[in-house]
């Protein structure tokens, strides 16, 4: 028997699982079917992905970088590991 379709209220809870490949084949099909026909949920998905992309930019440590002394030591280590 076919499972009940995914509604929006379920869809929004499954996004991370879907992105991580954590849904079963059947769940994935139902999820993707919903995504294909529900435009509010596809807008939700765009926002979700955009906020993911923004999170990746939110890296204060990368912007500042490690202290210079540490950076030098790390570069050394990388050079050695590549040998």
């Amino acid at each position, binding site marked *: 028997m076919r499972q009940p379709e995914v509604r929006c209220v379920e869809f*929004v809870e499954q996004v991370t699982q879907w992105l991580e490949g954590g849904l079963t084949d059947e769940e994935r099909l139902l999820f993707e079917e919903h995504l294909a026909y529900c435009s509010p949920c596809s*807008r939700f998905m765009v926002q979700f992905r955009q906020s993911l992309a923004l999170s990746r930019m939110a890296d204060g440590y990368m912007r500042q970088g490690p202290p210079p002394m540490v950076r030098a030591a790390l570069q050394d280590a990388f050079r050695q590991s590549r040998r």
Partner: protein
Amino acid sequence: MLRVARSYVATREAAEDVVQETWLGVINGLDRFEERSSLKTWMFRILVNRAKTRGEREARSRPFSSLETLDLLDPRVDEPAVDPSRFNTHGRWAGYWSSPPSVAALPEDSVVIAEAGERLVAAIDGLSPSQRLVITLRDVQGLSAAEVCDLLQVSEGNQRVLLHRARSKVRATLECYLDDRAGGA
């Protein structure tokens, strides 16, 4: 790194200490560093261990510790990704949006993107310690699910629930920002 440390310790000063100690640990440990894990994961392992130790020390002198909050890695508490009032509760369309997201996309404007980014950082900083930890390690630092589960000693399922809740709140912040822009400006 500060954001991760803050999840375990009470003050910004303590977190800064932990980050300092971590850099020292990284330098001192470089010879022992093997390539079984990425350098980044290894560095976070040092960071989390130091922050935990520090947090435990603090916990003895405080009634409530961030560590206790952290132990509430408890997905049983129901916390929906989207405010339930935004879905229909009755009739044929029950469970479907009644108040759907209106604006889909962020314009490709670097000023707007930077402004949205600032809101998102504030949103991440405002999350519960465990959600903040997971989203920082996964989405900001780019560690894998397996690395984060190992580092924080959480199950794959709990890691995913925490990540989804954190991401959902961050998305909601972006939506608010987009709506503000569309409405206000």
